[in-house]
């Protein structure tokens, strides 16, 4: 007789002892790094009021799961930890002297598309640095991220560093606005270069040269030299963004934390609350992004506390996949 199957929802899963043991080791290593840098671990409720979470960003980090409680209030499952921590800081640390250093290890929830192996519930490990401005605040967060990747044994991992405001400002400069702006930003975020060229050249008043500049800028990624290459393309928005990235990079070099950085002017994350620096984490052993973060200087203001902030989150299960990929590679080579 076969086993009795009691299904669980697609995108969710059980974790059995062998995997749990490895995940626990990984989590412990990550938290140890965070605490070593002075970040205190916090936990927030898995379920919060929908209207509170929606303050973070109504459009992109919107909760996929909502339910009514016994009083008819609308509750929601968090889709990341950045928004709940902004809420926590505003209500629990309103009078504290910044900067605040908080870290977490928590599950978050997102909608999944069927049959894609996507996770409905996933684990994130990350930090939030509240009240520290760019570039030093950003550099500290990257330094912690670098140490976390070291602790996870991902020696080949790379941190992409971009600027969330670059294209919004650049496109404004050349007169792309309204619906056209949204649609061009969408092409940039998905890196649809063919569509980007088509959309941009269809906007009235955008010259062929400006169009080519946008496409070329979005493809600039590499070491420090790409900042010079970008500057050569001109424009006030480019000047400001490259100066911001350059400052962050210098602050990182001063901390000895620039080794994993790939400057990437085409980086655009889809979470609407980012401003200034944005980060993404890659490892050659896996084909998808391991985590990300950046600055979100306007987010806490939406909760009534006007403080600059930066942070990152690693997808723990993906880091675990990368660990195994790197291990098996090590085995092949030796």
């Amino acid at each position: 007789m076969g086993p009795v199957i009691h299904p669980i929802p697609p995108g969710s899963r059980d974790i059995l002892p062998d995997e749990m043991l490895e995940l626990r080791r990984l989590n412990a290593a990550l938290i140890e790094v965070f605490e070593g840098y002075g970040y205190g671990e916090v936990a927030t409720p898995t379920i919060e009021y929908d209207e509170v979470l929606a303050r973070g960003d109504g459009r992109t980090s919107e909760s996929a799961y909502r339910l009514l409680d016994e009083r008819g209030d609308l509750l929601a499952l968090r889709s990341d930890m950045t928004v709940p921590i902004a809420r926590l800081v505003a209500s629990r640390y309103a009078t504290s002297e910044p900067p605040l250093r908080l870290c977490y290890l928590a599950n978050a929830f997102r909608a999944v598309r069927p049959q894609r192996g996507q996770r409905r519930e996933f684990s994130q490990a990350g930090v939030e640095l509240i009240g520290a401005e760019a570039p030093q605040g950003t550099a500290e967060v990257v330094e912690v991220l670098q140490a976390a990747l070291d602790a996870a044994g991902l020696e080949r991992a790379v941190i992409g560093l971009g600027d969330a405001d670059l294209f919004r400002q650049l496109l404004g400069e050349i007169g792309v606005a309204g619906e056209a702006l949204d649609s061009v930003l969408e092409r940039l975020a998905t890196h649809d270069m063919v569509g980007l060229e088509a959309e941009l050249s269809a906007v009235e008043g955008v010259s062929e040269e400006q169009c080519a500049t946008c496409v070329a800028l979005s493809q600039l990624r590499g070491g420090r030299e790409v900042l010079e290459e970008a500057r050569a393309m001109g424009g006030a928005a480019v000047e400001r963004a490259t100066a911001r990235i350059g400052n962050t990079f210098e602050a990182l070099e001063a901390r000895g934390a620039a080794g994993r950085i790939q400057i990437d002017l085409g980086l655009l994350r889809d979470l609407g609350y980012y401003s200034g620096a944005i980060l993404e984490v890659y490892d050659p052993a896996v084909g998808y992004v391991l985590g990300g973060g950046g600055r979100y200087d306007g987010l806490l203001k939406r909760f009534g506390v006007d403080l600059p902030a930066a942070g990152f989150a690693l997808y723990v299960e993906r880091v675990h996949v990368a660990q195994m990929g790197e291990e098996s590679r090590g085995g092949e080579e030796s």
Partner: protein
Amino acid sequence: MSVEVAGMGRAKSGGPLKLAVPRGALFEGTLDALDAAGIDTSQARGESRALIFEGEEITLVTMRPSDVPTYVEAGAADVGITGKDVLLEQSDRMVYELLDLGYGRCRMVLAGRKGDKRLGESERRLGTMRIATKYPRVAQRHFEATGHQVEVIEVKGSVELAPLVGLADGIVDLVATGRTLEENDLEVREEIVECTARFVANRVAHKLRAGEVDDLTARLREVAVG
């Protein structure tokens, strides 16, 4: 920590770049474009039934065109070539579309039986058209965008059969020369979108093997059919 800073994105890691090559209608055109870009495809052109052809610089991995986004999204292939029709149908696959290669040009169309009024009649009297297609999502999106109600019927084989035996009122399919439609007594009623071969890249490969990906993109851009 032994990561090099300068030109790190250009570091060669993990051997030759893996390129997903579509078998089928785009196969010849793809190999021609690769040849023109200076990539040796002679092994793949032979009678060999192998799926993988290793080269110095680039390894060709051959597969069905509709599998290309799957392999590239997962990073099992670093870059790939497939039709825009495939990318439109699998628009939720996270791959970077870097280049329109210009060959393999064909049109996605709505077609019905010659002289047959059933498409219009069904919509007017029954409120909906029955459309058979291998591209259910492209079809659904198109009719939603143009304000028509349809019942999309997904089929895997020859779509032309569906209206001939009454499974559907019309079809949405890819047309290159129009000969297949002609032979089955079908005609184009509406053009939905024009499709060509596209060069795509995995998100992480685009970052971590930037130099190689950019180099290949530039070479393919040179030979792209304008």
